[in-house]
């Protein structure tokens, strides 16, 4: 059983992302704003498996989250860019990361995803009179998400990184 769980740990942890996205645990939120959960999974995965694998996983993650949120806007471009970039960084550092580097990378990734999403909202409301009010809202969400994701990433990303790394090393 344990062997089965360990062999499929990437799938099980991946399934946790949509559950967390729907659940929105209040324990990890500030002003009801959640950290960017998919980044926590995407970052260690891309570091270990490289940019191509990372961007493909980003695409897959984006599709799943878009289906879940059923919104007019998409998260796919943000996750593809992040997956590719995380993979490049992983290759450059030879998959050796310091704990707080996870925080920095996750914060930048969260910023990229947030900005891409916010630009879509702004473009959709470009000709509307309420466009001005949206800046306040967007900046608040992006800055809070960056802070939360950067704060929690060293913990979550490190755990997942160790898990994925050993799984690959033991060739399960």
């Amino acid at each position, binding site marked *: 059983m344990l062997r089965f769980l360990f062999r499929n740990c990437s799938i099980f942890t991946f399934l946790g992302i949509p559950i967390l996205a729907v659940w929105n645990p209040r324990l990890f939120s500030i002003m009801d704003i959640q950290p960017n959960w998919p980044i926590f999974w995407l970052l260690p995965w891309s570091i270990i498996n490289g940019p191509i694998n990372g961007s493909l996983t980003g695409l897959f993650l984006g599709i799943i989250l878009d289906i879940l949120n059923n919104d007019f806007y998409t998260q796919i471009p943000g996750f593809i860019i992040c997956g590719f970039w995380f993979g490049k960084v992983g290759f450059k550092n030879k998959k050796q990361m310091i704990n707080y580097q996870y925080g920095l990378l996750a914060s930048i990734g969260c910023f990229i995803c947030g900005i891409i999403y916010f630009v879509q909202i702004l473009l959709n409301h470009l000709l509307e009179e309420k466009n001005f009010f*949206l800046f306040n809202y967007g900046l608040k969400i992006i800055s809070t998400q960056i802070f939360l994701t950067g704060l929690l990433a060293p913990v979550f990303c490190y755990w997942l990184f160790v898990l994925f790394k050993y799984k690959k090393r033991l060739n399960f």
Partner: protein
Amino acid sequence: MIKNRRLSSSRWWNNQKKWFLFIVFILVVFLRLSKSLIVRDIYYFISKPFWPGEFQREILRKSNKKEFNIKIDQLEYDNLRLRKLLSLQRSSKSDSISASVISRNTGSWWKKVILNKGKRSGIEVGDAVVGPGGLLGIVEDISTFTASTRLLTSTESKVGAWVQRSNIHGILSGVGNDGPKLIFYEKDIDIKAGDYVLSSPASTLLPPNLPIGIIESVDKNSKPFTTATVQLTADPQAIDWVQILKLKI
């Protein structure tokens, strides 16, 4: 004899006879001089629960309440009948379904709540969701067992609303934060902070006259239209149970 003596010495008023008589005398003098006013005051407090007036007032209050309820029911019935004649949107208490909030996303990009009733309970896309305080949002999509509600604070939310006091209609548009903007398509209008905002009777999306919120501030300098910030009366962050109102056209 000895027994009588013992008895008389055991009574405290026999021991303190002088003082007892003196106090009684003072009391009598006081009552005489005060013309028994204090006695009447004491009687007032003692007899208060048994007054017929108070009892009657309670009966009257209950009767009035019943009368008002009957009147409200009658007016609702008339309203529904007339709206039916005019082919406008309508909803009634019997068309509502209770549901609980199973997921809440009020802070991030997606301002939504997920409810534990779906297609199986007869919920349809576009139904209005009402919580304690007033309107929360509109059902956006449904699955067999759940319904996702777009909150009024969402950037994609737009509903028709009106200010009842001055009979002015506008569009309530979410801007992401807790105070959506009410946009009026007129410039010089009689709107002030504290006015009640209700769902528009002319709206094709919502039941008429559902309480939405209170005007917090008015920006008459905004161009090209006057806008007002609305403080919502129903707080989606705190609400656990909601009512889903079915619409009929």
